Structures are given as C-alpha cells and as structure tokens.
C-alpha cells in the first residue's frame, strides 16, 4: 500500500517534467536536450537558495526562473545563432553542469534539517508519502490548467501553429522565433521547477541527477499516449500526468522483479524504446493478420 502511494506521489512530482517537455517535444516538435541540464539546475538553485535561508516556495519559483533563463539561451542559440536545436540543447546542458557545480559549491548538497515545501505544517501532518501526493496533485492541477488555458489563447494557438507548420505560421504574421524561444523558456522553467520539487522530496541535490531526465520525461508522455489512445490536445496533457504515474508503477514492478535501482536508466530506455516502436509492432502484427486471412479458405 505505502509503495503504491509512494509511486503515485513520485509520478505526480515527476509529471511536471512530462508537461514541460510536452511543450517542446510534442508541440514545437523537436527534442530539447537542455532539460538534462535544467533539471539539476533547478534542484541546485532551490537547494542553494534554501540553504541560504530562502523560503522554500520562493526558492522553487526561483528555480523556474533560472531554468527559463537556460531555455532562453538555448532558444537564442537555435533561432538567432542558427545552431541546430539538438546541438544548442547539448551545449547549454553541458554548460549547466559547470554552473550547477558553481551554484552548489560541491557535487552533492543535502537539505538535512532545512525547511522544504514538504515540511510545510499542512503536509507534515499527513501519513508517510501522502505529502508528495497532495503537493503533486496541487502542482499538477495548477500547471496543467495554466498550460491548457494558454494553449487556447490567441498566443497559444500561434505557438501550436509554429510547431505544426512554420511556413504557414510566418505567413500569418506569427513570429516563429519568439514562439520557439518562449516554448523553450517555459519548458525549461517547468523542468527546473520539477528539479526543485524532486530535490526537496529527496532531501538533496546532486550534480548528476540530470542524467536520463529526457528519457523519463518522454516516458510519461509516450506511456500516457499509448495507454489512452486518441485524445484531444487538452486530454493528452492530462494523460501525461497519468502516464508519469503509470511509469512509476512499471519501475516499481521492475524493482520487485529483483532489478537494482542502478538498472533503472537501462530499463527506462528499454520501456521508452518499446513504447515508441509500438506503431511498428502494430503494423507487423496487422501484416500477419492479413497473411493468415489470405490463407484461410473460409474467408
């Protein structure tokens, strides 16, 4: 029971990353590697700020701002500097590693004995793991609502059009460079925000905690889509959160099967690869079905 609650809580906290990545991966239609740097950047910012005595909520919001700045740099390199998005992301991600070490002063900083969002007196009174469930629900409801509202605004529609057909968007007067920069800023802001939440939940920030983040965030998006099939854009955003929770249950199952926590990145990659290949499998399976039908004399 407590394991399941823990999985739901973790899924909710990590879902922030899925929604953040959705903006670039699904809407702008490119893979932004910056997130591997902005996740620990958010964690480092929040932990360093809290260690300096900042209010945890302000520290978490500060993480959003710093993450958005990293996204701004990727966006400028990509749109104004004409560096391919994959490389632009890798450049900022690599730079973030050094910046994170500068912010934290060392590779790992603990929050032991410090205030965090989870030690808030409202959450602290809850049974074990329920703190992350409650906080996660609040955060995801707020973030998902804001993103859904935004996507239905005039600006949000221009943002979607940019990812859908850049030539058309420009011919309708949409500044596609600004849309991409904005998307990268909000996306990385959310990822850093997620990093700040996870760090406070774990009780520490580590300079290496960004490794594999893009796979985890993609997994929540893809698992959500695979599990719930054809959905509208708004429903898909909600499905990201559910996908993130499902993904935590899959990990839980894998650990129960006897794999160690060190195997998780390998397993995450395999799960994601399998999910992304599902359309191919389906085609192959259909093909077999057709073959069988052709051989069936009654058909």
């Amino acid at each position, binding site marked *: 029971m407590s394991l399941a609650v823990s999985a739901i809580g973790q899924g909710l906290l990590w879902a922030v990353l899925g929604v953040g990545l959705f903006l670039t991966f699904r809407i702008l239609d490119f893979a932004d590697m910056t997130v591997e740097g902005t996740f620990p950047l958010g964690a480092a910012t929040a932990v360093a700020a809290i260690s300096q005595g900042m209010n945890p909520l302000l520290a978490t919001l500060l993480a959003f701002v710093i993450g958005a700045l990293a996204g701004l740099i990727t966006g400028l390199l990509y749109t104004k500097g004409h560096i391919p998005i994959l490389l632009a992301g890798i450049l900022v991600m690599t730079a973030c590693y050094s910046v994170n070490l500068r912010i934290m002063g060392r590779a790992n900083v603990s929050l032991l004995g410090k205030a965090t969002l989870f030690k808030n007196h409202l959450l602290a009174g809850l049974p074990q793991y329920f703190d992350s469930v409650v906080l996660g629900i609040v955060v995801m409801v707020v973030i998902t609502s804001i993103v859904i*509202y935004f996507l239905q*605004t005039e600006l949000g529609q221009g943002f979607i059009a940019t990812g859908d057909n850049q030539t058309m968007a420009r011919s309708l007067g949409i500044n596609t460079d600004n849309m991409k920069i904005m998307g990268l800023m909000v996306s990385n802001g959310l990822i850093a925000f997620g990093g700040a939440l996870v760090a406070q939940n774990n009780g520490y920030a580590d300079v290496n905690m960004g490794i594999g983040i893009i796979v985890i965030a993609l997994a929540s998006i893809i698992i959500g889509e695979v599990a719930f099939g054809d959905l509208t854009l708004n429903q898909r955003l909600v499905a990201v959160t559910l996908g993130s929770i499902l993904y935590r249950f899959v990990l839980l199952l894998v650990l129960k099967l006897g794999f160690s926590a060190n195997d998780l990145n390998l397993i995450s990659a395999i799960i994601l690869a399998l999910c992304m290949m599902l359309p191919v499998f389906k085609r192959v399976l259909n093909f077999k079905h057709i073959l069988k039908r052709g051989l069936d004399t009654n058909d």
Partner: protein
Amino acid sequence: MTKPLLELKDVVLKVNRNTPEEITILNKLNLTINAGDFITVLGSNGAGKSTLFNAIGGDLSIDSGQILLNGHDIAHESVEKRTRFLARVFQDPKLGTAPRMTVAENLLLAERRGQRRGLMPRGLKHHLAHYQELTATMHNGLDQRLTTATGNLSGGQRQALSFLMATLKRPEILLLDEHTAALDPRTGQDLMHLTNERVAQDQLTCLMITHHMEDALTYGNRLIVLHHGQVTYDVAGAEKQALTSEQLYSFFAEIE
C-alpha cells in the same frame, strides 16, 4: 482608380552572394501594381516569378532597389510584419495549413493575420457559424469537416482552405503562387473559378503565377511576363482582352 499600391523600383536580388555561384535572379526589375489589379504572371522556369513573390513577401532580402507600399519603403520589413497587408497561397497544399489543427482552428489563426496575438481566449465558438457559411461557399464538403484536422483533408480541400485563410481578413495584396498546380484539373478549375469570384467580389489586388496560358488569358485584368529577372511584357485592359494564346506563344518563342 489607378493609384499605385505597390511599386518595385530597380529591384536587384542575388542568390549565393559573394560566392563563385552568385546568380542575379531579379535584375533591376520595375513593376507598379495598382489597387484593384488582378495580374497574371507568366515566365519560364528560372525567370524569377517565385523570387519576385519572395522579395515582396520578405522571405528573400533584396540587394538594391525599393519596394514601396503606398509610398513607404518596406524592403527591410520582416516577413511577419509584411503579413499586415499581404496574404499568400503556396503551390504545395501542405504549406498553407497546420496539419494537426482543425479546419476551424486554421481559419481562426488566419483571422488574426498580421495582428498582435495576446493572452485572450481564442473564442472559437463565436466564429463557427461564420466559418460554416464561409466553407460552404467552396462546395467541396469543407463545411462538413470544420472539426477535422487539416492533415486528414484532400489536397483540394486543403488548398481551398488555404485560399479561404488568405482572404478571410482582406489583404491589401494577395499572392497566388501556382495555387492550383498541385490539384487535379477539375479541382484546380473549381478553385480557379472561386478565386476569380472572390477577387472580383472583394476587389482584391492580386498577383497570380501560373503556367497555364489559358488561365493567364482568361483571368485578371493585366498580364505580365518575366524573363531574366525583368518584366518584359505588360498588357492590361482591352489590350489584354484582345490577346490570344497564339500571340503569347510566338512572344515566348521570340524571347527564348
């Protein structure tokens, strides 16, 4: 009413600048477009027709010369800024619409062409009745598919939608770049008729590139031929009415 709306003065446009492959595409091109003109643009491949459109649209920057809209030089304005007065329909139906957005959503995007887009809700519902009427004028079933993603439409429907989007908010200048060329002959002719109707009805100023001599002769009040980056032939009014395809063919034979 023949006041110049758009003037191109000695426009030079080169590609592969400062390389051994430098080519001059537009070579001191001069063209005056009057308000209400419907100009058909002919020219062989490489004559500079599409480049002319890209120079007007801002996709390509010009090397020298002026592009004046109502007397103001717009040669250095961005593509986005020029959409205040300019709408385009491309040859490829895929270029004109957003495939994952619905027909209605695409129309709504076009409604704010060249305008600021803010954080106000888009208000799609208020427009649906209007869009229903509008798409019904296309007579191709588009009105039944307002909530369909445009990626699932036929090429003809997509191109009809592109055309509607370009004219939804009346543009001062409409550029049609062989917008019926990718369609089957029947669908292409349907769209051509609709184009002609709409241009006349809204008194649009329009440039239309075409490779169909018949279309070039049938439609519009003015016909120009581009050759080696210049306007080598320019007829309007009664003179254009009297022009025959034989005369045009022999003209092309001369310049080639």
